[in-house]
């Protein structure tokens, strides 16, 4: 018995494929950006750390390290805001 043929599904627009051979380079660049982002958090430059995390997430939306960097930087910012004292 011949299997029923499924109706043709319109092909979804595929994201532009990275040219072969560049994927490891992109991953390496993301790794370098995340290292830089962590340096920013250590220097209390949370604005820059957040911007770096956002850049990584635009390229790699599910990147957990970038999400963690974002969360840590925002927590650091809030801690700094909470430490404001008025005399």
């Amino acid at each position: 018995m011949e299997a029923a043929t499924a109706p043709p599904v319109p092909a979804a627009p595929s994201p532009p494929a990275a040219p072969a051979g560049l994927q490891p380079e992109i991953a390496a660049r993301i790794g370098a950006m995340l290292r830089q982002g962590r340096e920013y958090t250590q220097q209390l430059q949370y604005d820059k750390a957040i911007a770096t995390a956002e850049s990584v997430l635009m390229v790699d939306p599910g990147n957990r390290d970038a999400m963690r960097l974002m969360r840590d930087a925002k927590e650091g910012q809030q801690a700094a805001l909470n430490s404001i004292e008025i005399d």
Partner: protein
Amino acid sequence: MDRRLMRSATTTFVVAFILSSCSTMPGGEQAAAGDTSSACNPLVGAGIGAVVGAIANKGKGAVVGAAVGALGCMAINAMSRQTKPASQVESDFRKSNKGALPTEPVVNAYQVVVQPGPTIAAGQPVTITSTSEVVSGTATPVTEIREEFALLDPSGKEQAKKSKVLTEKGAGSGGYENRFNFKLPQGVPQGAYTIRTTLYVNGAAASTNDSKVQLVFKAREGAAARMVAAR
């Protein structure tokens, strides 16, 4: 009071006078010029402290009492003080209002100055100086003037607040100066912060002022960032 006790109280009063001289504002401003009834006078505070201390502890507590009294006044006068007596503020109001006083309290003037200016760096001390003139109403006198300071971050969220009472009970009309100091620590978001000051007369908000300060990026931070990027 025996001679020894008198000497102790006199010495203490001299010390108190020196202490009171130190409590004037930078630039030699004196507290409550022309109207000491509604302002804390360090000399009076120290004198009362000296007498109370001397009586309570036969002279031994006079110095401590004086110091406590003087320092208590200094804490108040360091940040807020009366600058114009009631008579002057009311006279000024009458001149521009056909000789009449208001029936309800009126804030005749309220100005706020932010120093060092509209742009600040993290860690830099910021001073907010407000000057106000409040006129008592003929039907409702001024019983209390309080100023509230709120700091809003660049997103508009309130991050810090402080309130100070500028007057003592039964204050009446007067001109006042008040100061708030703060620093934005390293790590806070860059952008425009709002400094909101509100003057409360008899518990009700009577006047509000919004000032903006821009937290700017320091060149040294940029250099540090470039060093990190170059590694």
